[in-house]
């Protein structure tokens, strides 16, 4: 590297830092955030957690009820992810440069993906709650829409990255569209797609808690109920069961990933 470029990149770094500090300061002002108070809150919060969030003997009696709700949440996330994956596969095939049928479908697929992904899952659940009411299907649909957007983008990227050469080779032999997709595109990108699906199931179990708090379904509702009735021992138990579930699912999907990727 020449001295001039080094000096220039130093300059850029300094400017970047000044901008970041400025933006941070402005954010603290607008959100009324006090750094010292924040720093002091932290040990206080940790000590509160250490003294109050304990699972006591009598809360274990609530375990069956909690587990039923947790079960519902897990099923909700898996169903939302799998069904969204099926539709995303079609949208992904439409949207990808390698496999698109024509430009109009490609644009439509990308638009649907961008639209459903960028409206936060919170907004979807609040919108759906108005007419679907307080039941599992509301949470399911909210997760479904968000997952659809994310997976479509991921699938489009996966298919694009899988490369054009196998597709071209099959085209040269005169293979039809369905042959190309089933024999060249899918086998190459399926492991990566599956990895994305597993990632989305993990994410959705965490999102399902949030959606549950808003729509009054699943484990999120249970958490919210105990939280609002100040039953912190039960809150600890609910949190604990969620942590265990998420970690188990992460371990299983890491295992699967290790084999297929």
């Amino acid at each position, binding site marked *: 590297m020449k001295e001039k470029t080094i000096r220039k990149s130093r300059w850029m770094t300094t400017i970047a830092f000044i901008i970041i500090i400025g933006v941070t300061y402005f954010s603290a002002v607008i959100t009324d955030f006090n750094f010292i108070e924040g720093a002091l809150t932290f040990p206080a919060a940790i000590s509160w957690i250490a003294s109050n969030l304990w699972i006591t003997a009598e809360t274990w009696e609530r375990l069956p009820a909690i587990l039923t709700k947790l079960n519902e949440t897990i099923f909700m996330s898996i169903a939302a*992810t799998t069904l969204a994956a099926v539709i995303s596969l079609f949208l992904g095939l439409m949207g990808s440069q390698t496999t698109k049928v024509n430009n109009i479908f490609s644009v439509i697929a990308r638009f649907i993906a961008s639209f459903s992904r960028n409206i*936060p899952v919170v907004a979807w659940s609040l919108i759906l709650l108005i007419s679907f009411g307080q039941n599992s299907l509301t949470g399911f649909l909210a997760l479904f829409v968000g997952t659809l957007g994310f997976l479509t983008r991921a699938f489009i990227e996966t298919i694009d990255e899988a490369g054009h050469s196998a597709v071209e080779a099959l085209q040269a032999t005169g293979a039809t569209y369905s042959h190309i997709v089933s024999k060249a595109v899918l086998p190459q990108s399926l492991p990566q797609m599956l990895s994305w699906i597993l990632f989305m199931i993990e994410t959705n179990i965490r999102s399902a808690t949030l959606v549950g708090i808003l729509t009054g379904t699943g484990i999120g509702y249970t958490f919210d109920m105990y939280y609002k009735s100040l039953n912190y021992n039960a809150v600890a138990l609910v949190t604990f069961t969620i942590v265990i579930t998420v970690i188990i699912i992460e371990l299983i999907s890491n295992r699967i990933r290790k084999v297929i990727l």
Partner: protein
Amino acid sequence: MEAFREKIPLEQLYIKRAKNGKINIKSGNKIDLVTKWTIAVLTLLTVLAFFFFDYTGLSLERAIPETWHNLKTMFLEPSLSHFSWGEAMYQIGVTVGLGVLATVIGAVIALFLSFMAAENLSKPWVSKTVRMVMAFIRAVPTVLWVLIFAIAAGLGSEAAVLGMLFHSIAYLVKAFSEAFEEVDNGILEAMRATGSNWWHIVTHGVLPSTFTYLLSWTFLRFEINFGVAVAMGAAAGAGGIGFELFMASGFYFDLREVGFITYAILIIAIVLEMASTRLKNRYFPASVRN
């Protein structure tokens, strides 16, 4: 080939065949088997899921047209009625601000923790402990962190930022430490040979070659944190545009206002996404772009 055949009797030259006599080329492929099983199990669980759902108060024939009508009202006639344009801009500013604070503070803390988590810069037991703590933190949903902090710290931006910090740190430590581990070991060895201490290695060997990479990851996290900040406003009373969204839909039932807020969030999210896509294409090698 002929010599090879003579040595082994034909029965031992075992070739799996399908029933119609075709040579089975897929047998023994573990990848295929696991892929098939995963898909089968997921399909089964999805079918089962619909039997476990709780359908109280649901009538699809009423809900679907109603949602359609609501969506049309939202997206075709957005307007504000409970607060002004200025107020809306301010609330968006609060949400973006929460995202910025959680990201910047998170990145600074994550930088130090990731030195401990990177295997080439720290001791194995330190790295393992940090990783385990981070895995635990990531397993608790952000909204629970914020709500738990809200009990101790009271409702306000401090609880929200602290709660969001936890996940930002866990996410960034993973990204940062992986970036450090990819630094060429030759650089580190060369520096160690000159007698540099740990601090020198970090500031002159590791950071310069990973810096743009770290900034890009931080920006990607900011994109996520904006969405999280909206969610925390709605679910944990952290204020900002998320809270307004919650009030408009849950209390006023004002679909036009919900539409306006949704558009506002959508525009910012799309701008952030475009920026992060450009960053990814510029700084990230194809192998880690996901």
